[in-house]
């Protein structure tokens, strides 16, 4: 049952599910690396989804809709930046304001302007099957048969990594988020950088919101973000404010969610699958940890622990594949909890304060 097809399906779906979450996390990375906490990603996405729908319907062009959604996201983030920087609002409160207003405004506008007019969506962006690459066994269907925004997401992850760590722009953004005064003293305009970074993040959140409309669904529904913006926030922390870290975390998240659905379908023994997959995860994680331990010349104890985890995982995986388990259906609500529990576990496992930009949430004022 848990054959090649099973994994290909799960992984391909994990990438789709990870797309809006990763984009949302990139939003967080841009604003938080510059020192602005953004818990308004959810609201930003919602407004962007709404706008992209309206614009795509009016223009009868999904790409224009995407653009409209992105601009809306940028504008919402600008509001966040203005509240946080110009009006020195506590940034968590500012994020809550964004979320509240986004729900209120989109619900209100949907009811007053959309529901009465009965406009219909114009479909979704078609898949871009990448020639040649799509035919690679296993990898092809997982990676290269997606709709365009999935590829955009990959592109943005790479681009963000490049911008953040290999360009003056990123160097300055990070300096502003870590030690704004130091940046100021070398002539870097702290607050303009923060505005710019937050708005760029907003554009990306706009893409995340538009994804739901122009790629996933084809029309706007009230509250259709259903918490993806908050998950993105967790994923950003999970990934330690790094684009690739966020991507990996989002994939893990997407995989867990996809698995939750997949196990519900009833053709797979739930317990068996969980044992097998947990084993596989331990094997993978343990091995990677062991390799890094050797590369970084960590102490022996760490290597042994990693090795034991890997071996236990291997055993579990083999048992999971071979033993017969009594048929059990885990209540799907519990499968749904998985990603959230995982987030808490990872959060608590992280070293205190690791990687968070030092000046995050602190208003910069010239002395």
């Amino acid at each position, binding site marked *: 049952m848990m054959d090649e*097809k099973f994994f*290909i*399906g799960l992984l*391909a*779906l994990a990438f*789709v*599910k990870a797309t*809006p979450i990763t984009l949302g996390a990139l939003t967080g990375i841009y604003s938080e690396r510059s020192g602005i906490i953004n818990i308004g990603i959810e609201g930003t996405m919602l407004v962007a989804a709404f706008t992209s729908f309206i614009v795509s319907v009016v223009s009868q062009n999904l790409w224009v809709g995407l653009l409209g959604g992105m601009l809306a996201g940028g504008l919402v983030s600008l509001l966040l930046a203005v509240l946080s920087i110009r009006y020195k609002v506590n940034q968590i409160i500012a994020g809550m304001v964004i979320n509240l207003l986004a729900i209120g405004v989109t*619900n209100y506008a949907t*009811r007053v302007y959309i*529901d009465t007019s009965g406009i*219909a*969506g114009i*479909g*979704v962006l078609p898949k871009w099957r990448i020639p040649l690459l799509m035919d690679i066994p296993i990898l092809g269907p997982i990676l290269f048969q997606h709709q365009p925004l999935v590829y955009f997401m990959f592109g943005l992850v790479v681009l963000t990594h490049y911008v953040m760590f290999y360009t003056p722009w990123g160097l300055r953004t990070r300096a502003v988020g870590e030690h704004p005064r130091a940046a100021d003293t070398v002539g870097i305009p702290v607050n303009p950088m923060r505005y710019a970074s937050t708005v760029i993040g907003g554009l990306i959140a706009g893409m995340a919101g538009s994804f*739901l409309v122009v790629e*996933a*669904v*084809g*029309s706007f*529904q*009230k*509250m*259709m973000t*259903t*918490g993806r913006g908050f998950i993105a926030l967790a994923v950003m922390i999970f990934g330690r404010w790094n684009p690739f870290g966020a991507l990996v975390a989002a994939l893990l998240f997407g995989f867990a969610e*996809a698995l*939750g*659905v*997949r196990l*519900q*379908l*009833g*053709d797979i023994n739930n317990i068996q699958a969980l044992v097998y997959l947990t084993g596989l995860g331990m094997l993978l994680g343990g091995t990677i940890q062991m390799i890094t331990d050797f590369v970084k010349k960590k102490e022996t104890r760490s290597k042994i622990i990693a090795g034991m985890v890997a071996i236990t995982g291997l055993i579990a995986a083999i048992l999971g594949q071979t033993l017969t388990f009594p048929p059990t259906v885990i209540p*799907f*609500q519990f*499968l*749904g909890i998985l990603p959230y529990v995982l987030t808490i576990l990872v959060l608590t496992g992280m070293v205190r304060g690791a990687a968070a930009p030092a000046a995050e949430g602190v208003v910069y004022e010239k002395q």
Partner: protein
Amino acid sequence: MRKNLFVSLLVLLTIVLVLSACGGATPTATEKPATDAPTEVVTEAPTEPAATEEAPTEEAAGCAIRIGYVTDVGRIDDDSFNEASWTGIQQAAEQLGLGDDCYDYIETQDTADYVSNIEAFVKEGYTIIVTSGFLITEGTRTAAESNPDIKFVGTDQGQDVDYDGVDDVIPNLTGILFHEDQSGFLAGALAGLMTESNTIGGVYGTNTVPPVVRFKVGYELGAKHVNPDITVLSAYHPGTSDVAFVDPAWGGETAQTMIDQGADVIFGAGGDTGNGALTAACNAGLPVIGVDVDQYLTVPEVQACIMSSAQKDLVTAVRDNVLAAAGEGEWTPGTFYGKAFLAPFHDWEDKIPDDVKATLEDLAEQILAGEIVTCPPGSEGAGCPE
């Protein structure tokens, strides 16, 4: 610190002032509360069931009949349940020649508000009150008992079941139910007959909502009835009911999962979530089956793919019952079973083979004749008759 003390003193002072002002007003009771007093007396209904002095207040005078609608938690324009009920009410009102002021709705935001929302209509002198949703079953029942002069219609509510030793049927209360399992069964049969891969899928809202469960039960039985070897993939949204019906992206992704598993017909039953599944499957070029209403009409994006919908005719049921409550038609206290059937095939009229159509018609007759059990006892959470 002192400031805080001061603020609390201020508040205390205000409270005392207000209280003493009110207390002082008692002897000369005619001044300020005077305007409120009459309504207060009149509206003092809840504890005294015999509130017969429910003499129509002035606003009500313009309308002979006033219809109030209390929605299920959610909005009036939910493209689904609330909206259909409201449409039924509007049609009835039109037929009765009522003015716009004579019928109104209250959107319920929290189950804790059901009772007070019904009360609001009672107080304003409404003569017919429609409530939506199974969660309000009890609230509607209590209100009906307390206000025998008002006709109550509850959708998705079984109002003839003996709960807590209460009389089975209340004369001024009708609950509307549907055999979702029956239309679900037909949808399943259609899917089972049309599939080429022998695998079909169904994407549902949450399993805490009995009608949704009945759709699923019927769908699976129907498919297996016509095609015993078929694989039916089913998934509920894992979220709570506030999320489970509004997550079209999840619906779409789940449909995709099922398609990856070989499903070639997708049934979507879960509000926007289900619609998301329909859209995704349609984009993948597969036939789909909608739910609740004729979704060929409500989800224009999938017109090319939608074979039919497992329909329950809520609009008509509500309209007819409201009309009956207004004296036009037969008022049937207890539970009224509305019609549940397959919607027209529309664009698929020609693509569906005649023998399939014949089988479906045959099955429909058998179901109506009670020869096929579409909701077997023991289907957990479906509320099937035991």
